[in-house]
Each structure stands twice: as C-alpha cells, then as structure tokens.
C-alpha cells in the first residue's frame, strides 16, 4: 500500500500521479494500481513513468471508471500497487529513437533517463505535456501537435526505435520498421502494447497478443515486443 504524494492534472483528462516509497522496476515495466475496494473489480495497469528518491510516478489518461477514481486522489490518500510486472524495453547501446504518442509518452521518460543521448519524438493530438522533462535528457527533442509524429522520424538513422502510443501508431511503426529493413537498415523496432488486463502476471490470458510464433501475453511476455513479432489483426 502506498501513499499519494501528488496527483496533478497536466492536460485534458491527463494526470501525473506520484506515490511515495521505494519502488523498483525497469524501463517499460508496469504496475497494477488499485485505489478502491471491491469495485471496480479489476486493478489498472500503468507503466512506470519514472522512479526517484521521492517515489514512483505514473501518467494516466482518464478513460473509464478506474482512471476517473485515480483522478480524484489527493495527497495522503492510500493506493495499492503491485509490481513491477512485465518485460520492458531492452538496455541497448547505439543510436536510439524514443517515440511516444499521447499518453504513450509515459514509459519513455524512464528510457530517456536510462539511455541519455537518445532522440525523442513526442506527438500529441492537442495539448502537449511533460515535454520539458524529456528535453533535459534528450539529444534532440521533436514535439508534434495535431500531426503524425512518425512522419518526423527516419527509422534508418537508428539502431533501435522504441515506440509507445495508440494502436494505429504502433501498426504504422511496424510498417516503417519493415520498410527500413527492406531498404537495408538494421534497425530494431520495439513496441510497447497496451491491452486490457485482469491478473497482470500471466495467468488469465485476457491480454493475449497474436505473434508470429503464436499467442503471447502482453503482461508477462510484454508489454514490449519486437515489432516484427507482432501480428496486427485490425
């Protein structure tokens, strides 16, 4: 059980939650959070935004009842955290691009801190947020509002590309990775997939992801997958 230190509104329906205490976790991993009793039934998976001496931070977008309840938390409130879960982004060397779309920027700040010198691309449909925190770690920061952030990235310039964002953006990133590879690039594209989860630890199979080698679990095998492994159905 953790204690809320702050819960700041950053933009329309986007919040920055800090929970006090000592928490671990690697780039791209997530926690299951719960700030209520029996209802809603399921805890909510949120990726680690950053870990510091003060605690652990999460960014979240209010999309339903659970995140709505998160948005009502105030300093001193209790919140239950289980984790860290999942397999995150790999610790890589070389030229790295971090690409986030909307709330998908959440896990990338941790990556930017761990992989200094990365180029960071952040795309927002309307109001940008948390861009200055990225600026202090990025070799180059590109922010796009209202467009398609992927249009700003040449995958062939990089050894590794980490992407987190909405489903269409992930599919587009996969296609860009394939195109770059076809043109002779050795770029490795990693996607952080968002999926509905129940258990968070690989037992219930509700977050199953179709991959070339069969069904895998977003919570335990992911949420980060090599783009070339993922089979998108729609």
């Amino acid at each position, binding site marked *: 059980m953790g204690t809320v230190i702050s819960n700041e509104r950053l933009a329309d329906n986007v919040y920055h939650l800090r929970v006090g205490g000592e928490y671990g976790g690697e780039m791209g991993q997530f926690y299951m959070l719960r700030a209520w009793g029996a209802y809603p039934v399921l805890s909510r998976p949120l990726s680690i935004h950053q870990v510091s001496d003060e605690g652990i931070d999460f960014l979240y977008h209010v999309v339903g009842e659970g995140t709505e309840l998160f948005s009502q938390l105030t300093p001193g409130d209790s919140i239950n955290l289980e984790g860290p879960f999942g397999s995150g982004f790999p610790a890589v060397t070389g030229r790295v691009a971090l690409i986030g779309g909307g709330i998908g920027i959440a896990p990338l700040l941790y990556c930017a801190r761990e992989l200094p010198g990365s180029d960071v691309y952040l795309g927002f449909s309307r109001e940008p947020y948390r861009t200055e925190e990225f600026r202090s770690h990025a070799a180059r920061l590109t922010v796009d509002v209202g467009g398609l952030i992927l249009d700003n990235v040449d995958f062939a310039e990089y050894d590794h590309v980490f992407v987190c964002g909405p489903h269409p953006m992930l599919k587009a990133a996969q296609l860009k990775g394939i195109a770059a590879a076809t043109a002779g690039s050795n770029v490795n594209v990693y996607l952080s997939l968002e999926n*509905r989860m129940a258990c968070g630890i690989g037992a219930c199979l*509700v977050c199953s992801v179709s991959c070339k080698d069969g069904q895998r679990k977003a919570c335990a095998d992911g949420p980060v997958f090599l783009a070339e492994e993922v089979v998108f159905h729609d």
Partner: protein
Amino acid sequence: MIKNGDSSSLNTQLDLSANIAGITFKNPIVMASGTFGFGKEYAKYYDINELGGISGKGLTLQPKAGNQGTRVYETASGMLNSVGLENPGIPAFLEKECAYWETLDTARIVNLGGNTFEDYVTGAELIQQDADRRSDSGRKAVDMIELNISCPNVKEGGIAFGIRTCDARELVRAVRRATSLPLSVKLSPNAEDVADMALMCQEEGADAVSLINTISGMKIDVRRRRSVFNNLYAGLSGPAIKPIALRMVHQVAKRVEIPIIGMGGISSATDIIEFIMAGATVVQVGTYNFMNLRAGEDLLRDLRQFMIEENIYSLDEIRGIV
C-alpha cells in the same frame, strides 16, 4: 465447538479439510480454472501449497489460440470474459506443466474442455494414461478431472453440451468410462435445469459437480454500435453473480448426494461460509484472484479468523446447514 483458549491454539485445532472421492483438500479454498494459470504465476507471491487445491487453465486436446478482439470488459461488480479457452493443448500440458504439478502439495485438478465429443474422450484418455505412467513411478501430478461442459466462450463443444441434460449425459458417460481419476463435472448456470443436470452427473458416475461456470452476458459499445466482443456474448463472473451461484448450489445440494464444488463471485471468507452453508464441500475462487494478488492466503487467514470468532471447529458443523 471451541469454547476456550487463545486464538493461536484454536487455530491449530481448526479442521478445514474436506474429502472428495478420496482426494484430501486441506482446506476448502481451490483456485478456479482460467484465473490461476497452472499455479506458477501466483506461486511467486505466496505459498500455493497452503491452498486446498488448484484447477488449471482449461485444456483441450489440440492447442487453442482463443478468441480475437476484446477479451475482458468490466461490469457492475463483475467482469465479462471472452478468452475462448486459449491453451497449449493436453499433450503440451502433460509434457511441460506436469513436472511442476508433481512438486505441489495441494489438490491438482485438470479442467478438461473440448470442441467435439471425441476431443473430450481422447483428452481424458491421455490424462489417464499419463496418470497411470506416473503412478508406476510414484510421481503423481493430477488428482482430479473437472469436465468443463459449460464454457460459454467457444463456438463448438463447450456450452453446447451444457444446456440440455440429454446432450450432456452421453458425454459424461463416455468421459467417466475413459478415466478412473476422480471426476467432477463443471455445470453451466445457463443449463435448462441445473439440478437435473447435476442429478444426471451423479447417475453417470461423476464423483462431484462444480458450479457455477460464468453466466452468458453481453456488452454493447454504443458508439461503435456493436458488441465489444467478437463472439457477441461473453462469460460474466465476479461478485455480481454470487447470489445466483449460491442459490444454484443450494438447489443442487438438495437433489444430489455427491459433493459440490461451489463457485461464483467468492471474494471474502464469509462468502466461502455461505457456500459451505448452502451445501458446498469445497469452493473455487476465480475473479477475486484479479482483485487481490494474494487472494488465497488472505481468504484462508480470514476464514480461520471467522471460524474462531464463531466457535466453528470444523466446516462439517455448518456444511449444508441452510
């Protein structure tokens, strides 16, 4: 009845055990199929050997990829799931998971699903053959088969067998012939008459009945004007279904003499007590595993505490009391 002594000494005097077809459950808490993997995942968080038992992820003869699209959606005090029996298949289970199950000191239940009549029977035969081989070498891995004729999320088999007693009878009879392992039949709340179905299972030689499976339900995305599930309907579980499950356990308990494995929305020790009072011998806990990662150990602690507070020495004192 316990009258004196401090709670720690009372704790050691409590008898939470139960027996079904010669299988000892050290307590009535069994983890439900589909919510507990094959146990390994939760074993990282508490000692699952303290549980009465586990029912593994539902298995079919061939591996199944499960359903595409949304697989879970929350409802008021519950959730709908449409996993569609994703599983590695029985041969892969026997090869890859049984080595772990051998090491467990809790009742181990294989949940057996199927697409066709032949799938179920062949699956039961494979499990039996493996159990025979292990018996020869003293490496038991499976204590019981739970025959799932009630999964609402597969188009073939599954619930098609679980609605009408006449459809289910032949299947239960054939699986009963295919295995000498203790057999429980997992019943659907969507059955025409759940008590008739349970009575049929008893007549066909089942050692127990498990009830209830999830209730067929639906959720519509009003903006997209379609069901959120590719299969249209999904299985409702969680606290929302507990009153229905409890009523059905009570009804079945009045009709059959074989033990009942009761389940449906259990999320507290008093929920367990209710099912025991309605006539269940042991219970299964499903959706609550998602609400509390350490559901098993917390429920067991709270159940003991309740028994101490209520001066209940053995669950036999209250079983079927209502």
